[in-house]
């Protein structure tokens, strides 16, 4: 067992599971989408991105790209959330909430890709 792989795998899978948890629920209903959970999703995604930096292999490049996509989508969703509750004061109306959740859905897809690459690379080896 390789301790590096445990840490790496842990954060990548956690990014996916938290993201999925936030995504679950009625699309437009703010009660079903916890803001702290969203916060955790962003933090864990940032950590996952950090872990992928500096990998010189091809697969490393794809993993990093997927992570950057997820970050971009999540940051956009977070900005939208902040702007609509504090600056325009529209509050979490159904259309605002559905935009945020659909953006997090896109990030979810990028995280799924990351996990698929991770798992398939591991399965390739006979070790």
């Amino acid at each position: 067992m390789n301790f590096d792989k445990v840490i790496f795998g842990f954060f990548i899978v956690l990014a996916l599971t938290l993201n999925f948890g936030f995504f679950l629920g009625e699309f437009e209903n703010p009660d079903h989408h916890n803001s702290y959970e969203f916060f955790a999703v962003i933090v864990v995604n940032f950590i996952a991105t950090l872990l992928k930096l500096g990998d010189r292999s091809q697969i490393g490049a794809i993993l990093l790209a997927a992570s950057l996509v997820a970050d971009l989508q999540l940051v956009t969703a977070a900005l939208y959330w902040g702007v609509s509750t504090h600056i325009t004061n529209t509050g979490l109306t159904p259309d605002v909430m559905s935009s945020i959740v659909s953006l997090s859905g896109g990030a979810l897809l990028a995280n799924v890709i990351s996990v698929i690459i991770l798992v398939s690379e591991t399965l390739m080896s006979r070790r």
Partner: protein
Amino acid sequence: MAAVEINRVGFLVLREMRRPIMTLIIVYSVAVLAMTLVPGNTINGETQHLSIFHAFYFVTYTVTTTGFGEIPGEFSDAQRLIAMLVLYIGVIAWLYSIGSIIRLMQNEHFLNALKEHRFINDVSRLSSGYVLICGFGDTGSLLARGLSENYISAVVIEFSSDRVKALALRDYRVHIPGLCADASIPKHLIEAGIRSPDCKAIVTVTNDEEVNLRIAVLARLLNPDLHIIARSKAEVYEEMLASLTDHVAVIDPFKTFADGLMMAIYNPVMYALDQWLVGAKGASLEKAVCPPHGVWVICGYGHMGHEIHRVFEAHDIPTVIIDSDINNIDAIPNLISGRPTARTLRRAGIDKAVGIVAATADDGHNLAILVNARTINPNLFTVVRQNLHQNEVAFSAADADIIMQPSLVTARRILFKLIAPMLKQLVVHLHKRNEEDKDYINTVIKRLLNTAGEKTPHMVTIRLNEQEAPAFIHFLKAKNPTILLNDLLRDPRGREYSLATTALVVNSGDETIVLPDDNYLAQEGDEVLLCGRSAAHRLLVASLNNPYILHYLITGEDLPRGWVMKWLSRSSWQQKTDKVSV
């Protein structure tokens, strides 16, 4: 060169279109002018005129027969009169122009210029090295197939337009552009990129010996460094070709085959290995074809009969020759003149012979000889020449011991000269060792069977340089100057296993190492000829490009990936390396 040709096509179009375009300009300008000058309806005592913009708008939709109506306002009768004239003349002018374009499109010379232009573009777009093939007959098409299976591009010049059309319909793995032209005209060779640094070799396999020679000479003059491979079936041409310089390789399928047959008689195991390496149909490492010793009957004393007789004579194997063309034959004992029939075969003593070679240039005759000879003597060892690829099925059904297909022998020889030039060094080495130690070849075969398996092997030449093996070069320079070649051939999925491949020959600087042993250290710039499974070769290429996998293969340790992991595991790393050094 490409720019000149673009101009040529463009120039042709412009020259043909000069008159129609001039006509259109005149018709349009006169029509617009007329429409503005003609007085329109009178409104509030003022005669209305179309502005130039409105007149041009009207002419545009009228002469193209779109017909939006009278815009901007209702026309006067004078305007309607002019409008009618504009419509008829304008439509005729358009028909004339379009007709000119269509006429140009049907012009054969223009179409040829266009095809040449496209071909040149295609050739210039081929990125990696390609092979220029002159002649797309049986040999050319077999060669193109073989090259495409090894992902090497090719460019074909062929005289017959039917064959070029056939080429366009093939499903190759790489793009192979073809030009229908006479390859012995320098212009076409240049169009096919003979001067490009990407052109790795030229192969001349047209059916005309004269043409092959001419192409070889032209190629030597147009690009002195180019590797030339020429097929020749006649002694005179071979001598002329060989005198061109040392970059020329002459392939004579019959000579190659005759030497092979001799190898099969005196050294069946070596012959089996040779056939297996080049991927001959039905070749097997485990059971060798063993032609018997004794009297042989050769039917047909053409080029093939000649070559076989030469090697048989050199090894004191008794032969009887049957040929109808007496003029062909200069003072040979044991000659029977006449067509090879049951009668002449009997006279040749087929019932006491051990083998027969049906070597005429006619497939029907060869098959007939085979059938006749077998009825008289069913135990004969049969060698038959198959001239045309299309007769494949008939020859398979005839079940001869060795089928000699000149186009296949040639194509294979050329292909292996291109993809595995170092194979020759292996064969030479094996011959030399075989004289000292008869068992050596068996150990080599055992080794190949263990790694590559019984199926037809895949051969590849890998260069350990910056382009093809960046991770290897990096490791060599940064960490450790001693890397075992065997470590590179470990399986990236688990280094305790080896990949299904064997290094046959290594070219390291001026040195050539055949079948390197387990302690061979790989150097920068080494060329390695590998023989094994293609999946293994793909994995090897991947490891040579991936620094993490390569590090694992050589050391057995997984490098931490990414900056954070490197930083995190820094302390534990140092401990590990300390332990290793202690």
